[in-house]
């Protein structure tokens, strides 16, 4: 573990090498990136295995002295970041491999790999940071990497706008983080996580200050993790290449906000208000994004909203004191969402459109992608035996055990929506008749399907490290030696699991009724599942009722929320930028080019100062 600091350096090396020699290497750049991230992955796994038994390792060196303030740099390997290291380096490695096929033929192929290296470096550095200042530095660097990658197709006006939007929106959150961090420093005299927690524990920081700082830090997390109301950049960020969406907007960067809250958990746990804020924002985001997801027709935007919603779940878990549940879902989500994005990329690669209305009947054509996409969809829907089932169950139990019954039911409803819109997506893309205009569809090369298979396996099995049936290894290990993080496993009533299962199956069934039944060839269905078919026929009027009432109602709600997003959130942003622009305009109008004006301004300024001085000083 002493050598854990090497892990982020491999991708950095990849970035530098590709920056300098990328033009000469051309598409061979991919090998540089792949091999170096593989090295990171191997090291990360070694570190994780070592951390399973050994104690937390921390190394530091002096960096900067301002007056008596001593700032340090270093790295730390504890349970949480050992786990994160593996998640990040694994997904990054798989995305590197996948991109070799996906980006094939792109003119700026080496640049893409260079940016990927930069981003991975920043993300791994962020994970290893033992103090807030270092975290902040890498946090910003992650933002820069994401900016470059989202704007990669810069010939598209929308990609440029999205890159800028993502950067600015997350910056708004970052300001919260920065202020919170400085306030904490002011109160505790340190940026070190350990020392901050120690002085919080010792009661040296007042209750209001704890609440204030944790909420400010949470604002940073809200920006990065796309929580309401700073979520609007995330769907737009889908303008970036799809592997980027898998890496940044599913598994790593957006999870950084959740990771930050998890890292700062002892601080949050010291304030009930902060915890409720996190839980409420999380639950609201979960259901809010899920309803929007119902209406989207762009394959990547559906996934983007589902990411926002799932991140909301994680926040809910953390806010409900379910540390283990939040981290656990962070892990399983990283795998199945990366899988879904890569699979979506594979679909887009094959059909050259992102509009699901134009897709259909791809099941037979994409014989690898389709089952893998199905695995991802089952996992995210929380179907039993898949990873998402276990982690979502933990979250629901945590919310229930914490007494947040309203939030619990919101989460259950959001789970229903999730199952529904994910299978809506699945059916619209893969089921139904083949489209005549999609004759030349072919499966992606192995460099693309390979990583998807790995993620597919993980999307199934990764849930079993923490189950109520076979033991809660992950949970026990995560909280080992740190009681501030809560219990490894929260006991909950057994009916929660049943409710979760019923809800997700109901969602799937509804999606099936609405999007598959009508378009699917009847003999295909009847020959395979005759019983189900007869039920469908008998329940036909339910379908109608669903259509006219329930779906209508949710559509209305979703429209309403969309309205809030458009007019309230965007309106707020617009008015702020409007004021700024207006002031800038006035300022430059004053700049008339007339020297008289300039000296008048100086004189008036001087006169105003003198008058105020004379008045406040009591000379008149």
């Amino acid at each position, binding site marked *: 573990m002493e050598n854990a600091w090497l892990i982020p350096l491999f991708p950095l090396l990849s970035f530098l090498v590709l*920056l300098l020699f990328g033009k000469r290497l051309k598409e061979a750049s991919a090998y540089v990136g792949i091999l170096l991230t593989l090295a990171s992955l191997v090291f990360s796994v070694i570190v994780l295995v070592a951390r399973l038994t050994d104690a937390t390792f921390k190394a530091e060196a*002096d*960096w*900067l*002295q*301002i*007056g008596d*303030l001593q700032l340090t740099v270093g790295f730390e390997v504890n349970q949480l970041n050992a786990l994160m290291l593996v998640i990040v380096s694994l997904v990054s490695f798989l995305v590197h491999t996948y991109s070799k096929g996906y980006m094939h033929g792109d003119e700026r192929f080496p640049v893409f790999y260079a940016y990927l290296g930069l981003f991975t470096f920043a993300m791994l550095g962020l994970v290893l940071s033992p103090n807030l200042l270092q975290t*902040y*530095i*890498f946090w*910003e*660097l992650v933002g*820069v990497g994401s900016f*470059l990658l989202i*704007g990669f197709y*810069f*010939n598209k006006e929308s990609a*440029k706008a999205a*890159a*800028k939007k993502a*950067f*600015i929106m997350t*910056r*708004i959150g970052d*300001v919260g983080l*920065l*202020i919170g961090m*400085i306030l904490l*420093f*002011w109160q505790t005299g340190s940026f070190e996580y350990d020392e901050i927690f120690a002085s919080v524990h010792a009661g040296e920081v007042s209750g209001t200050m704890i609440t204030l700082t944790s909420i400010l830090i949470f604002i940073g997390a809200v920006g990065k993790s796309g929580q309401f109301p700073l979520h609007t950049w995330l769907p737009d960020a889908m303008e970036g290449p799809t592997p980027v969406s898998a890496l940044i907007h599913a598994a790593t960067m957006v999870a950084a906000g959740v990771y930050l809250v998890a890292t700062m958990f002892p601080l949050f746990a010291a304030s009930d208000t902060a915890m409720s804020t996190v839980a409420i924002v999380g639950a609201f985001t979960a259901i809010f994004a899920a309803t929007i997801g119902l209406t989207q027709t762009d394959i990547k935007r559906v996934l983007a909203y589902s990411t926002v919603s799932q991140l909301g779940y994680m926040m809910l878990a953390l806010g409900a004191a379910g540390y283990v549940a939040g981290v656990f879902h962070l892990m399983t989500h990283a795998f199945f969402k990366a899988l879904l994005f890569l699979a979506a990329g594979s679909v887009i690669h094959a059909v050259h459109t992102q509009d699901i209305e134009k897709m259909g009947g791809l099941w037979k054509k994409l014989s690898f992608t389709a089952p893998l996409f199905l695995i991802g969809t089952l996992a995210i829907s929380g179907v039993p035996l898949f990873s998402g089932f276990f982690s979502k169950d933990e979250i629901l139990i945590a919310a229930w055990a914490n007494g947040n019954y309203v939030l619990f039911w919101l989460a259950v409803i959001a789970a229903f929506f999730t199952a529904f819109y994910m299978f809506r997506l699945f059916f619209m893309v893969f089921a139904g008749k083949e489209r005549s205009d999609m004759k030349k569809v072919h499966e992606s090369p192995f460099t693309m399907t390979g990583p998807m298979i790995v993620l597919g396996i993980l999307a199934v099995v990764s849930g079993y490290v923490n189950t109520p049936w076979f033991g809660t290894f992950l949970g026990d290990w995560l909280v080992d030696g740190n009681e501030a993080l809560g219990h490894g496993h929260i006991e909950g009533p057994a009916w929660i699991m049943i409710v979760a299962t019923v809800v997700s199956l109901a969602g799937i069934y509804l999606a099936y009724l609405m999007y598959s039944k009508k378009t699917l060839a009847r003999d295909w269905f009847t020959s395979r599942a005759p019983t189900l078919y007869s039920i469908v026929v008998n329940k036909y009027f339910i379908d109608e009722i669903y259509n006219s009432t329930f779906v209508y109602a949710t559509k209305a709600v979703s429209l309403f929320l969309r309205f809030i997003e458009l007019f309230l959130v965007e309106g707020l942003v617009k008015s702020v930028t409007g004021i*700024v*622009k207006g*002031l*800038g*305009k006035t*300022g*430059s109008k*004053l*700049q008339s*080019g007339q*020297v008289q*004006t*300039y*000296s008048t*301004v*100086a004189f*008036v*300024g*001087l006169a105003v*100062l*003198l008058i*105020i*001085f*004379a008045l406040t*000083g009591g*000379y008149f």
Partner: protein
Amino acid sequence: MDLEKLLSFDWGLMAPEFIILIATVLLTLLDLFLPKKVNRRILGWIAFASVLVAIAALGGLLGEQVGSILHDTFRLDSFAKAFKLLLLVGSALVLLLAIDYQPKEGLNEYRGEFYYLFLTGLLGTMIMSSSGDLITLFVGLELLSISSYILAGLRKKNLKSNESAMKYVINGSISTAITLFGMSYLYGITGSTNLKAMAGTLTTLNDPQYIYLLGLSFFMIFVGLSFKLASVPFHMWAPDVYEGAPTPVTAFLSVVSKIAGFVILIRVMVSIYSAIPMEDGTTPMLFGLQDFIGFLAAVTMIVGNLVALRQRNIKRLFAYSSIAHAGYLLVAFTAMSYVMFDSIWFYMLAYVFMNLGAFAIIQLVTTKVGSEDIAHFAGLYRRAPILAVTMAVFILSLAGIPGTAGFIGKLNIFLGALMVSPSHYVLASIMIATSVISYFYYFGIMTQMFFRPRAEEGKLKVPAATTAVLIICAAATILFGVMPQLAFDFLQSNFNQFLDFMG
């Protein structure tokens, strides 16, 4: 004063100034007597060499105790040494840029003039940073001002350059008048022009009527000097002058001249106004009037950053950005924390490298096409990837993104503002908010460079001297961003926290 007395002074303290002076005389003569055919760029190299020698001479003086000659009118304390170092390094870099400056309408006939006027300006700044008397201080200030008026109008046949020089002279004279008026109050009340003697007299002052008059002088001197800082309310000349002046002169004005402005401001304000008690008898006037400076700092940051959003001309944009940077520096000056000197020095160090680096690229791109529209930066990454990445480093640093020297500089100022009690959290928040606004225009340039199709065809050839500037600036920007302790160690081991400033 007889000859014996004159010889008894320790003239060695002025070695760097003498070197620059000798070089100036030498260049004047050479320019006069060298045949017309000889390329005057050789004079630039001589000027550059003389600045290097002056840096070396200053290095030799670093270990010296504080000393003063000519009856305390010239003092060499840690403050003077530390800031002279910045002035010299900045000037050396600007000279390198000037050597490579080849504008379209030609500058060859009077290129020689540029170098020695430049050196006299530099000499003025050095005298300002070392003066212990209002007279020498003013002489230094005028030496700098008059040299820069001419420098701004050096492109005689260019209308904009003429306009720029004219505006600069008019505004500059007004500012000088205001400053002098303020200083006359000080002289009237104390009967002395020596900073130390004045401070001594003023400490014992307790008539509130005098304090009122001193308050007036405080504001007049501050507003007069804000011309050199390009801060509110005397900031409006900057965009017009920066736009019209030849690019190396703009670089000089925005870096060296601005640093000199801060040097003289700190020298006068801290020496004199921290000695005057307010009516309550305990708070020094400098602290009593903090809110006013804080207000001006806030307005400077807001105006600089907001108006920069509207600029299409890269030099005007950098004029506003340099106004904003003056605002950040004023935040440190307002807070007056015990790390004020360190944080201002470090910020200026970072500013020298990041701003001059950016100007090097601006000069390169704009002189080639003869226009200064931001659009000419479009697709720079396609045309010259390394140049674009270097420019990105400077811009990230100017914006204060972690990993660069600019970030550490801002962090220092920020922590300094919160460290004092009562802490200036409002000012600190305005600083953060306005830096966020600055991302819009800084990233506007980035978008142009990286995300736009190329505007110009053809390769950009980077001349040798400019290459050196770029390498030095980029390396320093990153180095001091990653290992800022190097600079702080240097400060601590050589200047002992500027304790001899008042002594």
